[in-house]
């Protein structure tokens, strides 16, 4: 295996492609999400997306779109100009419960992960139960993202990626209207 620091830098683009593909799947292929998580009610883009163009020499542009009423057409336009999704806020729902979190492409780190409310801790005896519940709730998200990434990476190293997926994503990006 490659040196870890070298591998981290060299393959950052895989994380950006993953998040870009994930946005495409959320918008265009929701049944895939349900196949990977049968408890999923919905997975949506939340209130923040960061776009970066790392690979064009003439552009080091970063575009951040935030706000609950954010116009995602601006994001598609950023993709049109060659940017990728570098970071995204996601909202996952299952049953009556909601999870919100940020996912960063280059590291696949989770941040600001808020899970459904757990029982209050009133005595030290409550801690063990609270930990078990919190771990279970966090695991819903890590399992979902790990399953999505595993699906993505198998697709990414297959011929299907360039033959079918990339043309579909280009078509979707091309559907963006100029704003």
């Amino acid at each position, binding site marked *: *295996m*490659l040196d*870890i620091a070298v*591998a*981290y830098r*060299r*393959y*950052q*683009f*895989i*994380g950006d*492609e*993953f998040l*870009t593909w994930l946005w495409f799947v959320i918008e265009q292929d929701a049944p895939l999400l349900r196949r990977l998580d049968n408890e999923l009610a919905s997975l949506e883009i939340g209130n923040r997306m960061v776009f970066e163009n790392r*690979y064009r020499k003439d552009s080091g542009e970063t575009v951040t779109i935030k706000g609950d009423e954010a116009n995602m057409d601006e994001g598609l336009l950023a*993709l*049109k*100009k*060659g940017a*990728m999704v570098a970071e995204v806020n996601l909202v996952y729902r299952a049953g009556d419960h909601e999870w919100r979190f940020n996912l*960063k*492409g*280059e*590291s*696949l*780190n*989770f*941040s*600001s*992960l*808020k899970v459904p409310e757990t029982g209050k*801790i009133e005595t*030290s005896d409550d*801690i*063990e139960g*609270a*930990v*078990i519940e*919190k*771990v279970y709730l*966090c695991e819903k998200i*890590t399992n979902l993202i*790990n399953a999505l*990434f*595993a699906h993505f*990476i*198998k697709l*990414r*190293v*297959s011929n299907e*990626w*360039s033959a079918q997926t*990339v043309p579909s*994503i*280009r078509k979707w*990006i*091309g559907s963006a209207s100029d704003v």
Partner: protein
Amino acid sequence: MGLLSTSVSITQYRVEGELPSPVNENVTAALKKHTINEIDNDASEQAVGWTSFDNPYQPDFEGSRFVIDTAWVFSLRIDKKSIPAKVLKKHYNIEVARRLVESGRDYLSKTEKKQLKDHVITVLSTRIPATPNIYDIVWKYEEGRLWFFSNLKAANEELETLFTRSFKLSLIRLFPYTAGLDAGLKGPEKDCLDQLKPTLFMD
């Protein structure tokens, strides 16, 4: 932001290798051996060690208290003394003035100035309490998985160093490349992963 905080950050790791049997006793021994040392009354500027999740200021790993359900839950504690720059400057200048009077000279060499500064830092470090930072860990040994509840680069690096020293196991951070290797790719697929080049989605 700990495990039970309202909002958490998670860095995922894969743990490679096996602990010698009996596993619980061995992990307990390693946690005890590398428990955080208090540095409030000595000159050390930083200490890094394991501590208890439920009682981080009085670590206690007796009786496998860190075993919760199928996971080991404990914390990394990094204690650091930060001497305010203005405090350091004040005490350094006082020491320089005192040394000049004692020596009868009107200048100090570069080496003498550095020695004085180091001396001032050492003296102040014994008087300033360390600020503790606590980062929770959930280690599912049977699954070879570990969650570290922080995305801070420095904290992750301290975890990786101390973990390897304590348990003699490999701790591999999961980012796109390592997560790709972890996703069940077969031989030729792994070769493809190594050779991937960025996709351009624009026409």
